[in-house]
């Protein structure tokens, strides 16, 4: 194999015994040393890597640890667009993008962060373009934009309906330009190692060969994406599990605002594959069983282009009031997304990808037939608690992308703002991490922690035994989440689910049937399920505690927003007994909370 490793230090128990360290004398842990280690190779991770390489003039060694092959990251699925203010001369403005985002967030976004984000975006679009991104173009050769939900200007920059895919391609391809960036693909990061609250590195498992290694670095960035696979009806790829959040949580960093999970209005039934919001941006309409364009009752002005939480609630309300259709095979109820009014030409020009998807997965040609859709888990607003620079509470460790919660999305993200966020904070954290790594020395390694992690994985799980099928645990977990932490929530439902999750945590699933070393996905999956349970617990407890309805968090028993008590971010800290909640204020600069109308 060609992969060049920078193995400057191979740790062996004997050398450590001489230093007086104590642990079991049986393991050999490979140490892979570099300056910056980035976990995750989605849009955020790759953008960070490129920025770190650029900012350091390729003088720093950058490792990307990613559990899938780099370009297979979940980001490839993003379809619709990336928001940026490109044409102020035609009527768009930074002000407007900021306001739309804050309003969309149901005023839970930190407004200083939103401002920074909006101002930084245009150059990110141009930067990607300059690296080869095939943005769709206007007749005059400039970059084209389109409408997206919740915006007051068509500012979703797009490349057909494969935006995330093309962004990933551009970033991956550009990253190959830098020799200082090394990819460790199909390496599963398992824990963050710190020493006196300073970042030392991450431990990871090589899925391909079954080796365990310690990635020692001066600075780290967690860019492990969202955790949508807590649900089974999700737009996410199977790899979108909350490992990164779980790692941070275990390392003592709080998870923020985890109760806010976005349900996209149009997940195709029954697979949950996304029909992009751009379909509505281009003129698609939602119809109930009676053929009524019901959105006019919920959002008379913006109709289908109201923010996602609003449209999703409308669909579920229609279904609950008996105006939905029912899919016999899966039992799922849905409404129709009708794109037939858009016209063949425009569909083929701008919605080619979803036409392909609907044809292939459902046998429906969107040119002539409506698509069955229902709200689907699509995004987590919350994530690892970071400040406006993306820095975590551990010195030398940053987080970016969907895994992090800078909080520009508050209680509800606007479409097209997420890939954008990944770009902006990818860049910010990449640069800061590079600067930090240039100035600092490697920290001392707390070997006990590394060895304990190794033991947990190999002795505890690979060679462990148990009676419960971990995949069943995963399915049960997803079922609970689908049922009780969906678009509308109730205290009872959340409590029930929380109890069930806590039971599952105690169950005996931490073992592998597959004892082999090579490509043991069984081992990886058990590790994932472990993280899913803990993060699901945080989601449920945060949601149960927040007794109001805000953005994507809609409580049946508390239908109103309560700014007096709840205009604050939830923080969940890990303790032995489970999550401990705390709160922190929202940063409000210009825009005072007001009621939302679309």
């Amino acid at each position, binding site marked *: 194999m060609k992969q060049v490793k920078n193995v400057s230090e191979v740790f062996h128990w004997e050398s450590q015994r001489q230093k007086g360290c104590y642990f079991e004398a049986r393991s050999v842990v490979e140490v892979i040393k570099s300056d910056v280690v980035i976990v995750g190779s989605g849009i955020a991770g790759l953008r960070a890597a490129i920025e770190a390489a650029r900012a350091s003039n390729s003088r720093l060694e950058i490792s990307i640890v990613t559990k899938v092959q780099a370009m297979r990251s979940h980001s490839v699925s993003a379809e619709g667009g990336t928001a940026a203010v490109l044409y102020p001369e035609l009527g768009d403005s930074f002000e407007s993008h900021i306001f739309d985002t804050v309003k969309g967030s149901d005023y839970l976004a930190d407004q200083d962060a939103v401002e920074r984000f909006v101002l930084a975006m245009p150059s990110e679009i141009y930067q990607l373009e*300059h*690296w080869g991104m095939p943005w769709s173009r206007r*007749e005059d*050769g400039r970059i084209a934009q389109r409408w997206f939900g919740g915006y007051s200007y068509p500012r979703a920059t797009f490349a057909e309906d494969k935006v995330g895919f093309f962004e990933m391609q551009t970033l991956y391809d550009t990253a190959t330009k830098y020799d200082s960036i090394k990819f460790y693909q199909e390496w599963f990061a398992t824990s963050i190692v710190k020493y006196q609250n300073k970042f030392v590195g991450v431990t990871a498992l090589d899925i391909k060969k079954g080796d365990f290694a310690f990635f020692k670095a001066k600075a780290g960035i967690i860019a492990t994406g969202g955790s949508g696979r807590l649900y089974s009806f999700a737009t996410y*790829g*199977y790899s979108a599990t909350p490992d990164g959040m779980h790692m941070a949580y275990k390392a003592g960093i709080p998870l923020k605002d985890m109760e806010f999970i976005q349900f996209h209005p149009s997940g195709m039934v029954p697979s949950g594959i996304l029909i992009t919001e751009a379909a509505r941006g281009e003129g698609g309409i939602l119809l109930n069983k009676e053929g009524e364009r019901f959105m006019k009752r919920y959002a008379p002005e913006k109709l289908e282009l109201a923010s996602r939480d609003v449209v999703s609630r409308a669909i579920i309300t229609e279904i609950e009031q008996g105006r939905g259709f029912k899919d016999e095979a899966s039992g799922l109820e849905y409404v129709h997304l009708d794109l037939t009014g858009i016209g063949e030409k425009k569909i083929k020009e701008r919605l080619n990808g979803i036409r392909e998807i609907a044809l292939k997965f459902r046998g429906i040609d969107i040119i002539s037939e409506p698509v069955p859709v229902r709200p689907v888990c699509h995004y987590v607003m919350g994530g690892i608690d970071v400040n406006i620079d993306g820095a975590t509470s551990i010195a030398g460790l940053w987080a970016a992308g969907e895994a992090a919660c800078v909080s520009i999305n508050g209680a509800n993200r606007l479409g097209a703002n997420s890939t954008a966020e990944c770009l902006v904070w990818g860049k910010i954290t990449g640069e800061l991490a590079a600067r930090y790594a240039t100035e600092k020395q490697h920290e001392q390694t707390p070997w006990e922690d590394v060895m304990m992690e190794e033991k947990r994985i190999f002795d505890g799980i690979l060679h462990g035994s148990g009676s419960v099928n971990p995949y069943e645990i995963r399915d049960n977990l997803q079922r609970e989440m689908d049922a009780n932490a969906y678009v509308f929530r109730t205290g009872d439902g959340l409590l029930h689910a929380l109890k069930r999750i806590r039971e599952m945590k105690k169950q005996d699933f931490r073992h592998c049937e597959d004892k*082999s070393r090579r490509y043991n996905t069984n081992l990886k999956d058990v590790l994932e399920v472990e993280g899913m349970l803990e993060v699901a617990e945080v989601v449920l407890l945060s949601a149960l505690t927040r007794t109001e309805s805000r953005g994507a968090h809609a409580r049946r028993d508390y239908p109103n927003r309560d700014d007096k008590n709840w205009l604050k971010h939830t923080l969940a800290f890990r303790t032995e007994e489970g999550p401990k909640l705390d709160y922190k204020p929202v940063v409000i600069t210009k825009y005072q909370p007001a009621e939302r109308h679309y």
Partner: protein
Amino acid sequence: MSYVKLVVQRYDPERDEKPRFQEYIVPYRKGMTVLDAILYARDYLDHSIGVRFSCRMASCGSCGMKINGKPALACYTQVSELGTERIVVQPMDNFPVIKDLATDFEEFFEKHKELMPYLVREDRAEQENPKSEYLMKPEELERILQFTYCIKCGLCYSVCPTVGTDKLFPGPQAIAQAYRYVEDVRDEGGETRLNILDNPHGIWRCHFAGSCSAVCPKGVDPALGIQLLRRYVMRGKAPRKKGEGSKPFTK
């Protein structure tokens, strides 16, 4: 049909002498893809099946394999379209097997990288600190667009007869991507790429067998890209020289 017989080629090079086949009975449901069937077997019948997947919607390129002998994406093949109750899945050819259905892409990625899959420009300052976009007309975009659809799934690589014997041949995916960048009006690195390709194991070792295009799930048509690129290599001249890439927009 109420169930499918899924036959998986099992092989762990570290433990097994040679590949063997193992059969699983998987309950069928409407709309089931081959990937769904494999994952059912993996989750409930045998946790040790090695298989790579991620997006389940044909955009990440993880799940290329041979299904009933034909190279295809597992997540993009409906069980119903195969028309057989017995489904045999095997790893792609031309890639080393890591385990079972999972194959090793090192060499494939390396070849992609060697052909410089990024925009090469003289105006480094502008490129790294853009103030606006390089202009590109929709029809200029259309010339490269279909090649940008490539999801690096490797299916083309697994069927190309030249790749089957010549390990230095870059393969259809890499060359088609080289064409995508050479033909991009913003790019100025054409000449360098042409020089890399013009060697005894380079672009000339494509004999237009066309199998790459026949199996590509994304309509990339690598065979077309390669032949069009070959024209430039034969002439020894890229469509643009250094400094001739399209200019940034100015007011």
